[in-house]
């Protein structure tokens, strides 16, 4: 996965990123925030602004923040210096005129309630290591993707939840929606009355930030006082009122456009600045709406195991942050492996004949989940779109959310998925839930349970899920089923990913022991996992998840127990191939000075062991040696006191050293 790190990955963080998810979260921002922040300058008198370099976040304090005129002049001078943004304490300038000027000049103005000095320090920290900030995001996504497992729906849920301001869709090779944000929800499709990208995404509003409503109120106020605020090109003006040429070199966009005034006096529409739209070749669709950035999109092709095109992951957003699409692309690449796995599993499942027992087990699980969902307060999600390659074979596992409406899926291939918001785990679309519940109830009474009882399957009481996964290609599912039931007794055996899963009435310890024998008896190299003990079929999906996860981290030929699984095992489950490049990026400053790998090894030891003393023991060196090495690590810019930094470093070390 050498191409993971897209161009722009190390690009400085943008103002919008700072406000969206960074140290300025909660601040009021006027303007697009698209400019990169490379450094911070605290300005207490306006004359200092003449020395500000491009891409500086200007933090106003003291006299420079004293009143509207000072803030406006600072905005103007910051614009002249191509600064990234102006950050002022709340209260100096009325929001109305500040907003208008921010739009006119195309410079972002941010009001903060906190002490500006503290804000400045935080921005400086984020600006100095933007790649670290993004790597944090990627690491978090990697972990969540690993947790999500090979499920298109869950993978897309993770992507949409973890990538703020971005809408991710998985399309099949014919361009049909498979999972993720609905095509109609894709930004770029304008809806009347919605000109803020935030509106497209429930949950995208941040506390304290001017949301659409609030913005509307403020605008109304401005318009009431001053009529239509038609904002046009903000050119530089000399004292004599002449208009100097636009500062094309600095790439300042004539961004601002208000309702009904989307062109400037030259008739140019307010498109994104060219370098951004074109520079990455991602074909961002521009539009002229107020406050809307150019639309960028990032696409990553997902191949199946045979190398054929399975589909495409498409991410779209409005941020003009040059670093953000790169970060998104990296995360999309992380999602390729689970999606490939998901597809392969679906195909395997389709290709095998597990006949009645499988279908019965599936029905049991589906009905149990539907029942669980019908109960108030359970938020299990239902429904996915059509799945490529799934063909006539219904989805089989409850945690894939296919549930009871298998017929509906097969026939319509659409429509059961909840609204976009549900992708982020927000709940279940009512439209999907209703009919399925009714149907499942009838069937539950009908006899699946009776059949299961006849087969000797546990359907009530304490249950424990298991999962067996071949680590090489396994050809013979019926054989596997035979061997598993031989080891575990009468239990359901479901094709599950590349392997098989089911549940037993045995407790986890006994189940693990028996499963270990079964794994050893398999003609293929296998691993297995055992889930936690749960009460009843309604919860067995959860146990199955645990079992699957445990199997994922189990050493070859062994059985892992989810209830005994710790961070070390989880770390071991990270897709190291995917993460290797971002890890190298994170650790680049360290690797540059670490000629023999000692520092990396020491850093990993310290992070793993949670302290220098234990690390020294593990490495067999003196504690002072570890301390000295750590000082070198810190000297290249790593703040080991920062929890997020430690997490990212630990992940990165793990990936690189494994």
């Amino acid at each position: 996965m050498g191409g993971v790190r897209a161009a722009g990955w190390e690009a400085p963080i943008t103002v919008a990123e700072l406000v969206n998810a960074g140290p300025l979260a909660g601040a009021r921002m006027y303007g697009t925030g698209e400019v990169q922040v490379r450094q911070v300058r605290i300005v207490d008198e306006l004359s200092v602004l003449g020395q500000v370099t491009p891409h500086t976040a200007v933090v106003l304090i003291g006299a420079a923040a004293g009143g509207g005129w000072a803030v406006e002049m600072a905005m103007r001078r910051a614009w002249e210096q191509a600064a990234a943004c102006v950050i002022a304490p709340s209260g100096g300038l009325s929001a109305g005129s500040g907003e208008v000027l921010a739009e006119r000049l195309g410079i972002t103005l941010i009001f903060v309630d906190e002490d500006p000095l503290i804000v400045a320090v935080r921005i400086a920290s984020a600006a100095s290591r933007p790649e670290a900030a993004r790597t944090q995001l990627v690491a978090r996504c990697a972990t969540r993707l690993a947790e999500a497992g090979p499920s298109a729906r869950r993978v897309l849920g993770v992507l949409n939840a973890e990538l703020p301001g971005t809408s991710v869709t998985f399309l099949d090779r014919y361009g049909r929606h498979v999972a993720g944000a609905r095509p109609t929800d894709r930004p770029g499709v304008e809806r009347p009355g919605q000109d803020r990208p935030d509106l497209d995404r429930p949950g995208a509003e941040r506390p304290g930030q001017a949301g659409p409503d609030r913005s509307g109120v403020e605008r109304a106020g401005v318009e009431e006082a001053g009529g239509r605020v038609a904002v046009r090109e903000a050119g530089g003006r000399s004292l004599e009122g002449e208009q100097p040429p636009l500062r094309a070199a600095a790439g300042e966009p004539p961004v601002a456009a208000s309702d009904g005034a989307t062109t400037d006096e030259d008739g140019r529409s307010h498109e994104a600045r060219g370098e951004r739209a074109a520079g990455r070749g991602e074909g961002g669709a521009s539009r002229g709406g107020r406050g809307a950035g150019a639309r960028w999109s990032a696409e990553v092709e997902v191949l199946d195991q045979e190398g054929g095109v399975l589909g495409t992951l498409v991410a779209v957003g409005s941020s003009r942050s040059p670093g953000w699409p790169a970060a998104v692309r990296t995360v999309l690449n992380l999602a390729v492996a689970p999606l490939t796995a998901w597809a392969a599993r679906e195909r395997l499942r389709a290709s095998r004949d597990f006949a009645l027992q499988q279908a019965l087990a599936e029905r049991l699980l589906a009905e149990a989940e539907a029942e669980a969902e019908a109960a108030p307060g359970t938020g299990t999600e239902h429904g996915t779109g059509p799945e490529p390659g799934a063909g006539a074979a219904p989805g089989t596992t409850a945690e894939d959310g296919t549930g009871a409406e298998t017929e509906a899926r097969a026939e319509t291939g659409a429509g059961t998925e909840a609204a976009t918001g549900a992708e982020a785990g927000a709940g279940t679309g009512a439209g999907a839930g209703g009919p399925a519940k009714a149907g499942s109830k009838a069937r539950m009474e009908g006899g699946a349970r009776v059949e299961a009882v006849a087969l000797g399957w546990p359907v009530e009481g304490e249950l424990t899920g298991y999962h067996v996964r071949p680590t090489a290609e396994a050809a013979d599912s019926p054989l596997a089923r035979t061997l598993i039931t031989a080891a575990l007794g009468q239990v359901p055996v479901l094709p599950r990913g590349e392997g098989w899963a089911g549940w037993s009435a045995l407790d986890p310890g006994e189940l693990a022991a028996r499963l270990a024998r079964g794994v050893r008896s398999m003609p293929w190299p296998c691993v297995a996992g055992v889930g936690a003990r749960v009460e009843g079929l309604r919860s067995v999906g959860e146990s199955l998840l645990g079992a699957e996860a445990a199997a994922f981290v189990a050493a070859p030929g062994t059985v892992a127990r989810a209830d005994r699984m710790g961070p070390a095992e989880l770390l071991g489950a990270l897709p190291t191939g995917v993460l290797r490049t971002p890890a190298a990026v994170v650790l680049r400053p360290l690797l540059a000075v670490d000629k023999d790998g000692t520092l990396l090894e020491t850093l990993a030891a310290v992070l793993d062991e949670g302290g220098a003393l234990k690390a020294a023991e593990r490495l067999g060196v003196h504690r002072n040696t570890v301390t000295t090495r750590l000082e070198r690590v810190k000297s290249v810019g790593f703040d080991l006191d920062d929890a997020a930094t430690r997490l990212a470093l630990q992940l990165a070390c793990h990936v690189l050293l494994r």
Partner: protein
Amino acid sequence: MGRVIDRDELGRLSAGSRVFAIGTEESAYRLTLDWAHSVIGSGVELVTAGEADPGTLCVSITLVGSTTALGEQLPAGDEPARAVRALERRLGERAGAVVALNLAAENALVPLIAAAQLGVPLIDGDGTGRVFPLVEQTTYALGGLSPAPLALAGGSGELVLLETPGDRVEELLRPVVLSFGGWGVAACYPMTAGELARVVVPGTVSLLLRAGAPGAPRSAAAPYGVRTLCRGRILAVEGSTGHGADLALPSLPSSIVVQESAGLRRLVRLEAHNEIVLALADGAPVAMAPDQICMISTEGGMVVDVDKAEPGLEVEVMVVRAAPVWHTDRGQALGGLRAFGLPL
């Protein structure tokens, strides 16, 4: 020799004196004009500083304090003469001419009243070429002359003589004026006609007489040029004025935001400290003290005072260029932006 300002000329002078005058209280202006009419008799002689005998003692006359207070607490009538007489007593010399400190509205008329009462000529010129809020902000001071000794006469018979270094006059004067009830007439900057000729902004009385003639263009009242900064609508008034139920605590200084109505539709911010001292267009300074910035009502053609500015009002923002001496370093220090507390 000079000309005579009679009743007809008085009407022109008063009209001309209002073209760019800010802070005019209608009541104070009218009573001053009535007062001037009542004392002008056969007229006041207008001479240039150069025409007077160089040794002639000239005294500057100005109203100090609040014109609102003047409109409420009427003058006894003898204030200008009393102030000058007090200065004469201090100096042991008779004043041979009076001159204005500035020529905005009442301040153009009070020196005329003094001249009429004393029977001396009025010098054609003034000490600012525009209005500044402080007694020390004059071309006289720029020329090295002191406002002190200064005699201040109040409406209830008060009389105070200040003798202090020139840079402390304002500081001492202000509380005295307040204790008078808000206004007084000052006689100050005693100097010879020879000195005056060197430091006066010359010819400004004649200029206002011409500018006040019916049909004269507004620009006639600006000796060093005037330009229109923008025409627009007041979008917001910050700081000084509250409207409606949600009232902001009014305080000076204040700030007026004007949206240009046409053309570039710039956002023009007018920063005011009693008067407008700085204009920003889209954040860029486009005019500032010592030049005079004023809003002219589009509808009535009258100067709109800062405290009368209201959102929605259509105004033309004009910049009257100050006399060249104000654009020197010393002039900037005395009457530039920093003198108004703006650290630019």
